[in-house]
């Protein structure tokens, strides 16, 4: 796996965010989907530059700038979650978002980062990543159980109607 894989992952996260924020445009600022598209385009440019200067930039440096880009994408996912919960007070939507978007995304990213760290002899502390992986998996599992229970869904729909 090349370090640029994290940039690719970051681009996909931004694009997903863009589409989701378009679907929820009545709850988010109108410009947000376009901003995320621009962020994905920046990532694309980032990949192009990385390809051109592959020999000059060492693997260590390449890993870090790609990983930082991925972190920015992930922090945006969390920021949207926080925005729903705190700024908008949409608790049910924030919970759904965390269970369906935030934790699955973190889980996938942590999985790839930990497997990369394992192969590249611990660029990042492996134990921390594995703990994060387990926590994300547990939270995602609980969220799925809660979200898919018929009672919770019924209650959520009732609250939305009110």
């Amino acid at each position, binding site marked *: 796996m090349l370090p640029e894989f994290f940039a*690719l992952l970051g*681009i996909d996260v931004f694009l997903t965010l*863009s589409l989701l924020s378009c679907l929820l445009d009545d709850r988010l600022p109108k410009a947000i*989907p376009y901003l995320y*598209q621009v962020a*994905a385009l920046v990532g694309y440019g980032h990949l192009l530059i990385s390809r051109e200067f592959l*020999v000059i930039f060492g693997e260590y440096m390449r890993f870090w700038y790609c990983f930082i880009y991925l972190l920015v994408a992930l922090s945006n996912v969390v920021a949207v979650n926080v925005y729903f919960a705190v700024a908008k007070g949409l608790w049910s939507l924030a919970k759904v978002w965390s269970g369906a978007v935030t934790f699955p995304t973190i889980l996938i990213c942590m999985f790839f980062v930990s497997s990369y760290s394992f192969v590249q002899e611990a660029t990042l502390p492996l134990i921390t990543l594995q703990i994060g992986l387990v926590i994300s998996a547990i939270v995602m599992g609980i969220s799925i159980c809660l979200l898919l229970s018929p009672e919770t869904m019924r209650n959520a729909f009732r609250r939305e109607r009110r």
Partner: protein
Amino acid sequence: MELRKMPSKKPVKFLTLLLTSLLIATASAAVYYSLTMTSTISVATPSVYFVKGADNVTAGVSLSADNRSAQLTQLKAYPNVTTTYEDPIRVRNNHTLSSFNIRLRHVSLSGAATNFIFVNFTLMGTSERKLVYTSNGTAWTLPSSPTSWILIPNITAWSIKVETKAKAGATADTVTIGITVDVA
């Protein structure tokens, strides 16, 4: 046209974003794919090379700067006597982990056959590998094929023994033999 019949803004916006997203994702994946096909090739030092043996002075061994070729200029063949140089030069595998297959192979021979009987090169490994050059007084018989491969373990040096014999009554003649050590 009535406004109500116009398509809603949201699906159009979503479709546009979906298309651009697909475009960006595909282009990024293509760049990543081209990255995975980029190869970086660096110059490596060979792990198998020549080193001088215990009889190097007698045999007149001189090594190239990178130890990848050697010349043995003081080898003698005495009339009706087999002369053996037990350890003029060695083949060393300096790799810390890997073993390599090596063999001896004939490259060239120049010089008259009149006064020689044989010249033999033997790789003294776990089992011997021998290149035999014999003369019938008029022409040389060259090794028909390279020796079979033999695995030289890591951090090991094996000597190449040289045996020579000249015809009875021989006084002068020279032969130049080129052999190579193949590494696989």
